[in-house]
């Protein structure tokens, strides 16, 4: 199976879906002639032209709202946010329009858009460019949220997201764009709402999403090598819908769980997951459910310290050892 990098997997998904459906249109800042600020849309404008790949001015509220309006007429806009952090200037369009229009119209309207882009800290760009808004957006009934951790998941989930008939918030990671994974050449789709066991294990469940999955995998290696602990790593992949059964299955097997995310702790995704585990797996647990999140402050610039602010493999190992 060929190995490709995360951004190439996304590019292939976009390319294939543009070819498949004439209503798919890519919009965003620098996505066309510049080939994408992070080169995710490399070559697509040259291949598909002005109609299908469209450069926008720096005007997130207008082009996201425009995408929502166009989707009501049947288009399938895939809108790039150069950083998911910039969703704050388009929040009304995302929350009130994309998120609520179906409900407020009593189901007369649906909004098949994808909003995509990187949502991560760790690149020393300061607090305003480092937000991880998956928990903000998953809090809105009507929106769907996915956070793929690998190239394989990114491609399969992107194709699903574009074909989905509800608004999907697709959160990528600039630190993963250049990372390689095996991706099959033949077409495949990954459904939303299905988690993935990235590593089987029997002593503890490390449950994560996005880049934190990779941190958890590194921690699992350390745990195996240095502490003889066989950790299972469960990748949620999709935040809303959420694969709760996969979570319960893993916890019922290992009886212990540490939840890891690059979100902030207060009302983070893992607060929801922890609540569900205690409710549904109370009798299966041999230890309290523990969480590791990004340290609870705006993203610090200082490169040395930002690496400390995000969850590290050693943080996970320490948490695991406290309950194993």
């Amino acid at each position, binding site marked *: 199976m060929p190995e490709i990098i995360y951004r190439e997997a996304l590019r292939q998904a976009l390319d294939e879906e543009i070819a498949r459906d004439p209503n798919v249109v890519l919009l965003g800042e620098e996505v066309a002639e510049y080939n994408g600020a992070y080169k995710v849309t490399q070559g697509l404008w040259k291949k598909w032209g002005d109609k299908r790949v469209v450069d926008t001015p720096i005007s997130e509220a207008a082009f996201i709202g*425009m995408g929502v309006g166009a989707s009501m007429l049947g288009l399938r806009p895939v809108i790039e946010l150069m950083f998911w952090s910039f969703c704050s200037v388009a929040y009304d369009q995302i929350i009130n329009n994309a998120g609520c229009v179906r409900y407020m119209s009593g189901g007369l309207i649906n909004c098949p858009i994808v909003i995509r882009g990187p949502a991560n800290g760790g690149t020393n760009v300061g607090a305003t460019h480092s937000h991880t808004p998956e928990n903000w957006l998953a809090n809105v009934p009507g929106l769907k949220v996915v956070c793929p951790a690998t190239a394989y998941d990114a491609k399969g989930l992107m194709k699903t997201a574009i074909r989905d008939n509800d608004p999907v918030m697709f959160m990528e990671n600039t630190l993963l764009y250049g990372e390689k994974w095996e991706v099959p050449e033949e077409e495949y789709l990954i459904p939303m709402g299905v988690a993935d066991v990235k590593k089987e294990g029997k002593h503890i469940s490390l449950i994560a999403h996005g880049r934190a999955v990779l941190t958890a995998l590194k921690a699992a290696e350390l745990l195996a090598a240095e502490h003889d602990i066989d950790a299972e790593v469960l990748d949620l992949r999709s935040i809303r819908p959420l694969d709760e059964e996969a979570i319960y299955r893993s916890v019922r097997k290992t009886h212990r769980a540490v939840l890891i995310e690059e979100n902030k702790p207060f009302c983070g995704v893992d607060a929801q997951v922890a609540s569900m585990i205690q*409710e549904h797996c109370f009798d299966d647990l041999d230890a309290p459910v523990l969480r590791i999140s990004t340290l609870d402050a705006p993203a610090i610039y200082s490169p040395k310290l930002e690496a400390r602010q995000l969850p590290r493999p050693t943080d996970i190992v320490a948490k695991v050892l406290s309950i194993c």
Partner: protein
Amino acid sequence: MPPIMDTIVKPRDFASASVNQALRPEDKIRFLREMLRIRRFEQAANKHYTAGKMGGFLHLYIGQESVAVGTCSLMGPNDHVITAYRDHGHALAVGMSMNECMAELFGKATGCSKGKGGSMHFFAPDKNYWGGHGIVGGQTPLGLGLAYGLKYKGLTGAVMCFMGDGAVNQGCFYESLNLASLWDLPVIYIIENNQYSMGTSLERSSAFRTCLAERAEGFAIDWSQVNGEDLYEIRAQTQVAIDRAHRQSRPTVLEIDTYRHYGHSVADANAKVYRSPDEIERYKENHDPLRLWKAQLVTENILTEEKYEQLETEVAREVEDSVRFAEDSPFPAESAITEDVYFEVDRQTTAGRTGRHFFND
């Protein structure tokens, strides 16, 4: 301040515009009936709101009926409408039934949005009517998107995106104007200037030289100021904008000056504080589009008092029926609370059945 309509120069005879010349007497009577339907519908809504039959807010359109009726009378098959929260007038003008609208106000399952939207959120996509939006100015990018969709699909159409004078100071409106002009999108932003953004008067909220529509100048968008008390003028000037959209795929900003007889909403305790009772009376007396249109039709020998009374009787019956329909309709079932959130869940597709979408218990 003198009424704004008194300050607008009236150089032209809009009745002679071709779009008005083409009108038959029955069309003109129909416009009167449409305006009357909006007014009597809302008066009944006001009564039942005050009696505690409805929740939330009720923003009445009374005094502005000529705007919705005049503009929507020009809609062709690919012309679309989207508006803000003062949306009852546009809903009735595009052909929604009083029953579904009144039932929505009563929060009933038979309402146009199944009782999930309320007064500010009427929708009828089958009539090219895309709401009914509660956040001031929030609908302006959506209107842009409808226009983008039309152009993308190669359809000749226009989108009339209505907004209040208070919405002109929201940022997304200017972002939308920029894109509309930059990309040649067939959208018409119609500022219904009733001179008050809630309790703040035009001069206390907006900076301008001659009028609000003039702000379009900076975006290289054609604009015009329209006297909203005159149905002929509304139709004539809106038709120019529609033609521009259809033939050149170019946007327009129209400012239609008008006046609301009631407060910002029925719950507006200061409705007669921030504007004087004299001012309100002056508008009702001299600038009420319904009275003026009625007088116009009498002058044109199209309407008799007898015919008008007949219209009143018919409309009153329709209103009564809609209230009865709303009263008799059931409230939505409790299960409806989590319906119409996700398309895929509603349709029980594979996607809709995969993973957990709702998080209670």
